[in-house]
């Protein structure tokens, strides 16, 4: 059974003083309902997640105590993607006709604080100063640049592109384009990654209403169809965040597994995708994820960025809404923001940043600690 996304809602990303993360989630949920002209009463189920802003299911006290099935989802940076996947399965199973996937968050300023023991790692790992996600990002792209001859120029171009796109997105946090020199001269954070190549923890909320495809028409003529949803965890030998050791033999990243599974499920290939959102926690991640998701060969990113292939008018626009770099990272909402953007693009409602020539297919990808990946493929 196909599944349709019939309604989408967002609370602007960034910093919203005086509004809790939960309230931002509620706002997004109401926007999604309004988008398709439905009421909270019409929802048969919901999957929701937040990593730092409370239990998603407590939203019911504000949205209404209708007695629906509401399940909390917690899967690191892939929380939103996992909520969507759960909602997809709930409809595919035939158990429900219509429901919601929602995510929100509100993180303190500064780098994410990690509790190593919660991830099954020794306390010493944090004590000594190693349990930091920016270090992992720095070390993974460092090795990748060494193996595939990628230069700093490509890292800079990714950041410039995403901030440029973010400036065209009214819901983005960072709405200032940075020049090449701004990025190139920003402070070094974790070599080779500089300040303006990183996203920051942020706030925001996002919600989608999903429905059996054969019933979607009764609600809207604007449906976007989920052709594939896949979530995979790491296998032995892949290079993941918070790994105190690594195997000598490398294995493909969980993104490769999720991407392959999703393309198989959708029955199309990377060359058929018109617009993509790829996890860009920092510039290096977008570069590696271009190849891990099958869009280009390892090492080709240098040429792709130089020739503008991932710009809004390029052959594969990537992170048209500014990605995590311009929107920041509210962990629970991030994956759904990507889906929101693809829906806008496929509905032709992306305004100033609309991909030309009526894109028909879209792709989203998230990566989360401690090594999992979620991919969706959508079609208009």
């Amino acid at each position, binding site marked *: 059974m196909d599944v349709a996304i019939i309604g989408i809602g967002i609370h602007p990303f960034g910093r919203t003083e005086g509004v809790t993360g939960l309230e931002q989630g509620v706002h997004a949920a109401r926007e999604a309902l309004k988008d398709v002209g439905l009421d909270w009463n019409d929802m048969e189920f919901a999957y929701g997640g937040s990593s730092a802003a409370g239990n998603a299911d407590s939203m019911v006290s504000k949205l209404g105590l209708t007695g629906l099935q509401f399940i909390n989802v917690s899967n690191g940076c892939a929380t939103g993607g996992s909520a969507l996947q759960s909602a997809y399965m709930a409809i595919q199973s035939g158990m429900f006709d219509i429901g919601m996937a929602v995510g929100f968050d509100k993180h303190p300023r500064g780098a994410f604080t990690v509790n190593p023991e919660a991830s099954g790692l020794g306390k010493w790992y944090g004590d000594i100063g190693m349990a930091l996600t920016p270090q992992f990002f720095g070390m993974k792209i460092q090795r990748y640049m060494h193996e595939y001859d990628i230069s700093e120029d490509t890292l800079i171009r990714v950041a410039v592109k995403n901030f440029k796109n973010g400036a065209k997105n009214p819901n983005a946090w960072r709405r200032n384009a940075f020049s090449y020199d701004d990025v190139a001269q920003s402070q070094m954070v974790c070599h080779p990654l500089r300040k303006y190549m990183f996203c920051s923890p942020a706030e925001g909320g996002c919600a989608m209403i999903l429905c059996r495809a054969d019933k979607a028409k009764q609600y809207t003529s604007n449906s976007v169809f989920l052709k594939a949803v896949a979530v995979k965890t790491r296998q032995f030998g892949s290079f993941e965040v918070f790994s105190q050791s*690594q195997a000598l033999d490398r294995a493909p990243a969980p993104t490769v597994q999720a991407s392959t599974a999703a393309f198989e499920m959708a029955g199309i290939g990377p060359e058929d995708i018109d617009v993509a959102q790829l996890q860009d926690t920092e510039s290096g991640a977008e570069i590696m994820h271009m190849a891990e998701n099958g869009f280009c060969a390892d090492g080709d990113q240098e040429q792709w960025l130089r020739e503008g292939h991932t710009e809004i008018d390029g052959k594969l626009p990537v992170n048209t809404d500014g990605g995590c770099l311009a929107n920041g990272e509210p962990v629970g909402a991030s994956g759904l923001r990507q889906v929101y953007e693809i829906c806008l693009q496929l509905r032709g409602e992306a305004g100033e940043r609309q991909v030309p020539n009526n894109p028909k297919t879209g792709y989203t990808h998230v990566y989360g600690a401690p090594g999992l990946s979620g991919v969706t493929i959508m079609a208009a």
Partner: protein
Amino acid sequence: MPSIADQIPIADGLFTWPSNDPRLLGSKCADCGVVTFPAQSGCPACCGEDTEAIELERKGKLWTWTIQGFLPNRPPYEGPETPETFKPFGVGYVELPNQVRVETRIQTEDIAKLRIGMEMDLVVEKFIERDGKDIIAYFFRPADES
């Protein structure tokens, strides 16, 4: 120099101690031979449950690296620096021949010289002082500084 009795490892079971020639402690799977660090009871490669503790090599090559450019959040960080005294430090993976790649802080006089492939040596030395005792931890250092 404090006596060995006044030097406390940052965690039990990470390296041999007390010792004049400490080694990192890993585990090796009896079924598939895969080595992990720190030692653990199950094998992440073959799902076997039969692992034995082994001492790891003390020399290896730098496989990748970065430089931690800002003072990490406390908690969890317990390093002695203040925002005023903080100096960026190296972190990397050192590949120990035929065993495993180990994540480590890097001690060096010159972080600008870090390169993939450079020879590295294990050092076990003081990290911080706590309650009058030295808390010791493992690091790797470029072999040409040993």
